């Protein structure tokens, strides 16, 4: 089972995660607030 895990994770990373991530970024999703410029960076606790 373990020997299958690495190839499987590699496929998930490049075939699923990478394209979705690129798509998100093209459409301005910024989970890490890398591009945001604000007056204050405090975030209210939900």
């Amino acid at each position, binding site marked *: 089972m*373990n020997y299958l*895990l*690495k190839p499987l*994770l*590699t496929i998930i*990373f*490049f075939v699923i*995660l*990478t394209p*979705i*991530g*690129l798509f*998100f*970024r093209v459409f301005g*999703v*910024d*989970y*890490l*607030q*890398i591009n*945001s*410029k*604000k*007056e*204050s*960076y*405090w*975030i*209210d*606790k939900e």
Partner: protein
Amino acid sequence: MLILGISAFYHDSAASLLKDGEVICAAQEERFTRIKHDSSFPVNAINFCLEYANCSIDDIEYIAYYEKPSLKFDRLVKTYLMTAPSGYESFIRSMPVWLKEKLWLKRHIRKKLKFKGKIISPEHHQSHAASAYYPSPFDKAAFITMDGVGEWATLSYGYAENNQLDIKQEIKFPHSLGLLYSAFTYYCGFKVNSGEYKLMGLAPYGKPKYTSLILDKLIDLKDDGSFKLDMSYFNFHVGFTMTNGKFHDLFNREPRKSESEITELDMDLAASIQLVTEEIVLKIAAYVKEQTQVENLCLSGGVALNCVSNGRLYREGIFKNIWIQPASGDAGSALGAALYVWYKYLGNKRLTINTLDRQSNSYLGTYYNDKDIEAFLNDGNLPYLKLNPSDLIDTVSNKIAGENVVGWFDGRMEFGPRALGSRSILGDARSKDMQSTMNLKIKYRESFRPFAPIIRAEDVREWFEVDGNNDPLNNFSSPYMLMVAPIKESRRLAVDNSDNYNLENVNQSRSEVPAVTHVDFSARLQTVHQESNQKLHDLLSVFKEKTGCPIMINTSFNVRGEPIVESIEDAYRCFMRTEMDYLVLGDFILDKKQQPEYNETQDWKNIFELD
């Protein structure tokens, strides 16, 4: 009701146990496994807690785990989404552990401990906040938690009153004060998550030349203390290093290799990032004061172990009173999570106290009585003397005044990274050579860091500048060695400061207590209170009667890279491996010269990794 608190799987695993809301024991796993900052499931620490309370896992009603794994996983996946195809190697390495173990943590805990009760997971910073406020002496307080990262939050503040505690605002990953400091720790050649205190110790040698550059390029800092990092200079969110080529180009050098020569650049960077950290903490504290309008502040999280910044925060007087969780790293969150369940989740009342705090001076670990010690000594045919308490104090104070180094193993082990007089090595702070003797012959570590002083609480004003706070009548205390204060001008000696960058400067006598005075005349002090440790207080009193000085060196009972000793056996081994002169075990004293030859089966100096 018994509540077991657990922190594990990142660094410094620990367990704690509450009985009807009272902390009865807590310990870090590293002390038992002898692996520094051990992050494995703390099975030994849990067993200690159960044995100490004389109960079994079936008697535990709740287990409190210190963070929410699903929220942490959410952060990991979203970080990969934002950075892919970078981050592949980190993904391949971290995912198997997450998929097999971390995501199913509650199941894992149940299976491992055969636990059938309820498991509650507060958020990482809620656990930190709970560990800061609930054991504090305050009825109401603001709190600030600052660390590398928990789930998403890296810094939070809020307000707590009675049993209620609420986070108001936070700053989220990757924007982290702890990780910014760790990035410089890494770049200056020290180990992340443990070498930060070395960088802090290096700072007084340098000049803060790069403060403006850091504030211009690396961090966008606002007046309210909130900030954002420019992630194009960092690598910690995608890989295994903290900084990248752009960061290295900024300072014109590759990261320093561990154990290579420490340069002026390292010293200046240490001074600069230390100053930037202090400025950020002060801005945050001012903002939190404005938002909460209270006089008391509680601190926790790894950044709260920065005692230079804590000392400055105290002296600036933004808050009248400050209490800092002594186990401010993730170990303390085992305690915080359990307290969170008792007070916040179960809604139990929190009563006002008249003591220093609810942490029992952090003497929460293992205890060995005289019978255990005597059995150990007799089994090994080891020569010793058993003395009554006053003779022991008299003998030890004479030995220390005679420039002997004494291992001091007494009472319950400390919870948290500092040795506070239970598992300590003591020496004469007045001695000119003691600093380098202890560094090179006992601790086997770099000599640029001075030792910490212990001083009777009532003597502190005669030796240290602790009146910086607005209220001159305030009651300064630093029972957990978490405040740095300058030595009084009248106790200082004239020194040659022409070559600031020389690491040997620390060996110059610059005060009446040179072994504990840093190059900037500061000291990381521990105030010893009669009500918290009578025996240590007596020792300092007798030492003062004999020498006029109420101060001694207190350093942790270990060699570099080794966790602090836990058992009698650990203490004896460390005593025999080093050039310590005497060992005190409870009421027993051992003279090195009388001990049988100690044969090592391995080269122990290579067992422990450097920070």
